[in-house]
């Protein structure tokens, strides 16, 4: 009789429920049905999300970076992406690697990889999906723009930017 026990989780696992995903030319749009947020993931972040199948460790993801994204095989890039994905609730379960206190900041990475261009670092922009009244009146909503993937508006014009906005690599 075949063993039906699933293999143990060895790497980060993406969330597959309550989201709608749509791929554009260079970006990926994700709608979070639970939180009514719309996220726009850049190419690198979308790539990392795709790798989060629960069986791919961070090290292996990093090794795939040169072929897939033409980026150096640096685990810090993956960790930065995972941190962003975790922050916008697109990962399930714990990611032990993110508990480390030595995680690099986006600024550090941008400096370190300046030669490949800041735009290649993982990035996400998010908005709060408006209610019909908010979208219709347009007088009372509009979260802030963000360049680091963790600033979210609450739909009432009050931004909750809880991350740095300094990571544009420029």
């Amino acid at each position, binding site marked *: 009789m075949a063993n039906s026990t699933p293999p143990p989780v060895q790497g980060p696992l993406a969330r597959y429920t309550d989201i*709608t995903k*749509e791929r*554009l*030319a*260079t*970006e990926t*749009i994700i*709608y979070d*049905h639970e939180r*009514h947020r*719309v996220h*726009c993931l*850049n190419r690198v972040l979308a790539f990392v999300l795709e790798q989060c199948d629960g069986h791919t460790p961070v090290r292996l993801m990093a090794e795939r970076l040169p072929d897939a994204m033409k980026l150096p095989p640096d685990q810090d890039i993956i960790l930065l992406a995972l941190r962003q994905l975790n922050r916008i609730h697109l990962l399930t379960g714990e990611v032990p690697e993110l508990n480390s206190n030595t995680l690099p900041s986006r600024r550090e990475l941008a400096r370190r990889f300046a030669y490949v261009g*800041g*735009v290649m*670092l993982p*990035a996400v*922009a998010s*908005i709060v*999906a*408006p*209610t*019909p*009244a908010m*979208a*219709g*009146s*347009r*007088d009372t*909503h*509009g979260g802030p*723009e963000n*360049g680091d993937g963790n600033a979210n508006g609450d739909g009432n014009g009050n931004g909750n930017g809880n991350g740095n906005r300094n990571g*544009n*690599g*420029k």
Partner: protein
Amino acid sequence: MTISVRRLSRSTRPLILHLPEESCRRDWRSMPYGPIACRGNPIAFRRVSMTSDSVLCHGLRIGFRANREWPVDSVLPPEWRPIRSACVDFLYSFHFGGKGEFSAAFFGGEEIVRADSVSRVLSVAASHIEHTVAEHSRDFVFIHAGVISWHEQAILFPGRSRSGKSTLIRELLRCGAVYYSDEFAVVDAQGRVHPFARPLSLRLPSGTISVHPNQIGAETGSQGIPAAGVIFTEYAANGRWRPVFLPDGRVFLELMRNTIAIRSNPARCIQYVKSLMRPAIGMRSPRADAGTVAPSILRLFDEVTSEKDLNNGKLNAASGSGASCPVYGYY
């Protein structure tokens, strides 16, 4: 179109309020009507007797009933036609009071407005119906944006109320554009934009006025057209028209921000908006006076269109249409 009323006897049985879901399942025209208590005041609804008592508007069937004759088209959004439908998606009821009495409008079983002035009731009801259609339309996705047609391609101007959208649309019409809407871009599954051609609503210091496109010599569009561009622009006192291209993802997010039904049906909205964006480019710029910037916008799209013709498809946004449109970087 006018709804007439058949007088019923005073012995009409008490009314059961009908919720929209109920009206979908039952023939709402045969539902009993009669006096109901509304915040302690009895209101009499009576059977609407004309056959054209329901309309089809952007794929939604809407039923109307009232206690006297009234012009139902005064509250309807553009692009509707009368139908004979036993079931409707939404039901509006109107009570028109006599002299010194209040009037009221109801959405299903819920009172949406009560006022002494009939015009106030109709105005609020019209706005409610417009938003109901925008949120629940089965065939279209509504985006809060002004829309014009230029060379049979749509240009969208999403933006906040009071950001100068209608004023800009008026100036573009004066330059020869065809009017589609100053409120909603109505997008179908193929990404074509359909007209929502209610009169332009212009805010003046003295109040809001309605201007029909004919009054400024503009034509009104009548069919769905593909989108050429999405422009995010807002009046600023010292604003200078310097458009920069936006990446697709950013345009997508900004359109989502203005999509009425994004919360109720995100998957469909995302699909429709993606179709809308396929042939379109997005750009952003502050602007000064609408009268001076309108010709620049149309000239820009002339250049964009010619470049698209050369490229046999979508414009490469990175190359833009010249130095005036550098790449917009947000990462």
